[in-house]
């Protein structure tokens, strides 16, 4: 059945599937993992960095991008599609600021991106964007926000979420470990993001990239050294927890 209804984006299958949209979601799974956490006073985005080729400029391979001073986004999926969406979103952020003299809310720019993606699921001769995005930031009211969009054009607010390869494993880890205590403290929220990524990242801390936004502060990208320090602290805590466990069983 799929073979007759999966070539054109504008055709529903008899059982109501839009196969091209579903296939676009498979393309998202080919991208490396990205995780977003909404803390009490902080929002965190962590991504698994792809190892770059020897002659490639690492600076130009980015999964976390700022859309405005107070909003940033991580994506998973087709790199070129992400570039187009990010450019459109950045233009929209500035256009909004010039028109209404206020910066965009996180929800507004998420809705803009989601509407753009939905348009591409309903047009002739086009295909859907093969990316999912995690959009984080603080609004003027000081409340932290985390939204997720997918190729179909849907968007939802989340407390914590993951996209890309092994997203399900990371999401299950977050469901078990996301507690009010875990996110009350900024440092704990950062550690939770790194721990979630370490569940699936293949080579440890050196393949992780992290960005945070604190209330009334601009985006901060963590350096490799800072991430390494956090990973060391997490490994130490793990060892101590295991020692305690083995003492209890003895």
């Amino acid at each position, binding site marked *: 059945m799929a073979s007759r209804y999966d070539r054109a984006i504008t055709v529903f299958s008899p059982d109501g599937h839009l196969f091209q949209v579903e296939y676009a979601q498979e393309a998202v799974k080919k991208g490396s993992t990205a995780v977003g956490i909404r803390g009490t006073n902080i929002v965190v985005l962590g991504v698994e960095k792809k190892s770059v080729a020897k002659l*490639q400029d690492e600076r130009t391979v980015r999964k976390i991008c700022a859309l405005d001073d107070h909003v940033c986004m991580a*994506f998973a999926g087709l790199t070129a599609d992400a570039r187009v969406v990010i450019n459109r979103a950045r233009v929209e952020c500035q256009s909004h600021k010039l028109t209404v003299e206020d910066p965009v809310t996180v929800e507004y720019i998420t809705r803009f991106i989601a509407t753009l993606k939905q348009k591409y699921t309903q047009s002739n001769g086009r295909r859907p964007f093969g990316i999912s995005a995690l959009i984080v930031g603080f609004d003027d009211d000081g409340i932290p926000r985390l939204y997720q969009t997918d190729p179909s054009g849907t968007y939802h607010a989340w407390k914590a979420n993951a996209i890309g390869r092994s997203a399900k494993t990371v999401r299950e880890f977050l469901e078990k470990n996301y507690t009010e205590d875990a996110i009350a403290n900024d440092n704990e929220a950062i550690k939770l993001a790194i721990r979630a990524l370490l569940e699936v990242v293949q080579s440890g801390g050196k393949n992780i990239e992290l960005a945070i936004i604190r209330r009334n502060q601009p985006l901060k990208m963590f350096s490799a050294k800072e991430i390494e320090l956090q990973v060391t602290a997490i490994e130490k805590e793990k060892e101590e927890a295991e020692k305690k466990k083995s003492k209890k069983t003895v």
Partner: protein
Amino acid sequence: MAATFFGEVVKAPCRAGTEDEEEEDEERTETPEDREVRRQLARKREVRLLRRQTKTSLEVSLLEKYPCSKFIIAVGNNAVAFLSSFVMNSGAWEEVGCAKLWNEWCRTTDTAHLSPAEAFCVFYHLKSNPSVFLCQCSCYVAEDQQYQWLEKVFGSCPKKNTQVTVLTSRHVTDYRTSESPGSLRCPFLRALKTQTLKEPPCCPLLEQPNIVHDLPAAVLSHCQVWKLPAVLYLCYTDVMKLDLVTMEAFKPVLSSRSFKGLVKNIPQSTEILKKLVTAEEIQSNIYT
């Protein structure tokens, strides 16, 4: 043939009369040139089983020449890497031979000088127990070559005390289920076994209407026909290239009887697995 608006290619009816009569005439007469082309193609696609030292062909099948009580076959990159890390690094294995073959999936047209990475299935036996055999098959064995491969490896009368285990992986989009694809927890293992295998597999059996394809299916069918105890462990994954998470999904099979005594140091093997993945990582800029 005609292309529709949606990009499908469909057979269009011909108003110039039926084509069937012309096709039948062509099929009836086969020229000597056609026969020669067929012969050359058959020679090109022949599966050859070669001895390790001399690189000469084996006169009899592999399992007729060497007695075998346990035969573990890994088909595909992830299964091969898993066996390399967990089984081959836990003991001393000696290469006894290889199966060399060429088909359209090979990246070279030079059938005489094929590299091991391209078109080899390599066979090893355990030095301390030479009746334990292992096969690592990273190349694609085409449908017409599978029978030859089975004949050259198992022979026409395989011994019934040989226990066969096959490990392979497949993309999760091939898995048919009434559950929604988003709810499947990838990667996951499924098993299929022959009637003569009494031991239960270490994961759920493959549900209908799913089927197994290619060389693993041919091996399992052969074992079922010849009443050999055999089990196939199939890992459904969403990442078809070499992937640590997929390879680790095979770990439950280490507890089965087929692998008893073959796996020694699991933490060290996991480290070796990680190194294999980083060494083989191919850069693709399409997905980030």
